């Protein structure tokens, strides 16, 4: 655990040294107004996604649960797209995170309704449907947006990116993510009980419904806050709990807290790679960071799916 925080701290310091202005310590304005918000956003968003993933895997008793795969991230991005391109957030900045976390909450509630009825498979299928639907509506909303550049920005929202964000974005995203993570971190015991099954948890005196609802709310806050300023970054929530299980065991309560530093470190590392690549390769600007998390996460998903199938 301590090691994870040390890793994160080292990456965070290193992250301040990588950027479009070259390697090394930049001028103060670049450091404070560009690299600091970017580093902080990577930490918060990555940590929020990982804690959400760990909670969802516990609450749904499903090792494939991930805010991205289940469409919560996609729906959150859709809410942000609507608020942003239609000018609501220009009139009132907090409309951006509010819209995205309401959309994330709607997605989480819809999934819980499905999960309550069907099994593992129907939940994943519902998530896939929700992902596809949110991507389709993002495309539609961008195509209808009254700005000629909007449609070209679909990669930002579908894959997720934290390029060129400012302190203002940090101020919008940080409160919901921090509150969401705080809510999720209190759910350890309830999630542990849930892993025995809902009936067993209820017989242990655990408030099952309350735990599940709080998990949905916490995920909506943590995922929605991030998606509002960075789009739907995928696979962090899926990958991190699985990376931690060999060391921290299967119990959700043991996974929640270490998920934050590892998720943060994962997204920060991926973002540093994305920032460094244009210095090495002749790229037309930066890749969205979601490209890197997908490249890491998709093979991991295949491995997991095989293990679950056995």
């Amino acid at each position: 655990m301590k090691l994870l925080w040390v890793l994160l701290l080292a990456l965070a310091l290193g992250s301040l040294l990588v950027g479009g202005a070259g390697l090394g310590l930049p001028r103060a304005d670049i450091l404070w107004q560009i690299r600091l918000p970017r580093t902080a956003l990577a930490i918060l968003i990555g940590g929020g996604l990982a804690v959400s993933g760990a909670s969802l895997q516990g609450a749904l008793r499903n090792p494939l649960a991930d805010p991205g795969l289940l469409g919560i991230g996609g729906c959150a991005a859709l809410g942000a797209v609507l608020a942003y391109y239609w000018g609501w957030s220009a009139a009132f900045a907090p409309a951006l995170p509010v819209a995205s976390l309401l959309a994330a909450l709607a997605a989480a509630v819809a999934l819980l309704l499905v999960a309550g009825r069907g099994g593992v498979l129907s939940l994943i299928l519902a998530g896939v449907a929700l992902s596809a639907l949110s991507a389709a509506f993002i495309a539609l909303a961008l195509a209808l947006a009254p700005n000629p550049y909007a449609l070209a920005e679909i990669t930002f929202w579908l894959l997720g990116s934290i390029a060129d964000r400012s302190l203002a974005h940090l101020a919008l995203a940080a409160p919901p993510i921090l509150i969401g993570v705080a809510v999720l971190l209190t759910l350890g015991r309830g999630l542990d009980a849930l892993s025995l099954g809902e009936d067993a948890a209820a017989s242990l005196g655990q408030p099952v419904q309350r735990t599940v609802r709080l998990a949905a709310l916490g995920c909506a806050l943590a995922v929605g806050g991030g998606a509002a300023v960075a789009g739907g970054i995928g696979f962090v929530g899926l990958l991190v709990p699985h990376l931690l299980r060999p060391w921290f065991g299967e119990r959700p309560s043991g996974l929640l807290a270490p998920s934050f530093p590892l998720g943060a470190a994962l997204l920060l590392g991926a973002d540093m790679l994305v920032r460094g690549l244009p210095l090495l390769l002749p790229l037309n600007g930066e890749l969205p960071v979601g490209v890197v998390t997908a490249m890491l996460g998709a093979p991991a998903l295949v491995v997991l799916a095989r293990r679950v199938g056995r």
Partner: protein
Amino acid sequence: MTWLAALLLLVPCCAWAAPVQVVSVNLCADQLLVHLAPERVAALSPLARDPTISEVADIAAAMPWVRADAEAILALHPDLVLGGRYGAQPTIALLRQRGVPVDLLDMPSDFAGIRTQVREVAELLNARAAGEAWLAQMDERLAARRPWPVRAVMWEPRGWTSGPGSLGDSVMRQAGLRPMTEGHMLGLEALLADPPDVLIVARAPDYPSLATDLLRHPATQAIRRVSLPPAWLICATPESARAVARLRR
């Protein structure tokens, strides 16, 4: 004999007759047509009415418009269609097949090119006087005030920059500025690492996009900035000289 004389008198008249029903299917052609021969507009492109990209939007709002659709254009019975070199090619091909005269305009990238094009189009529309008056106004604007010899970057949405051979570059050089970029993409950090004396950006449209939000990133606030209406720079016309006048001191 009398009728023969009358016929002979008519010949020069009709050979020189200007087109009376002109349709434009291109934003830049719209602006030339509105400035040179507004009374002969049969229809403009719908883009001409958009005030963020069209410098004649207020006049165009009262004029008919048509999409680049061959059937709709043929229904207007135009005796000249103006288009751009690279747009609406299938439509243009159909119109030519139907025998409609079409003139395709290039995009000049400097003021000499603008002068040549205005004269050509004015000739075509038989509106030489209007063309010369417009060019005189352009020369007046190009000579206004004093050059401003500082380092400049013209920063476009997504971080693209103006390079040699672009209208933006010509506008900066005409204003006496020293362009720092060669048309490559310039990221936020790279811009700040070697900041220009003046940052030239197009005034943002009403609705946000990440591409245009980049130009307003708080970290760029320390750099002196001049905002220009995008309509002055999208099409190369004598009105582009207004950008030069704005950039001089």
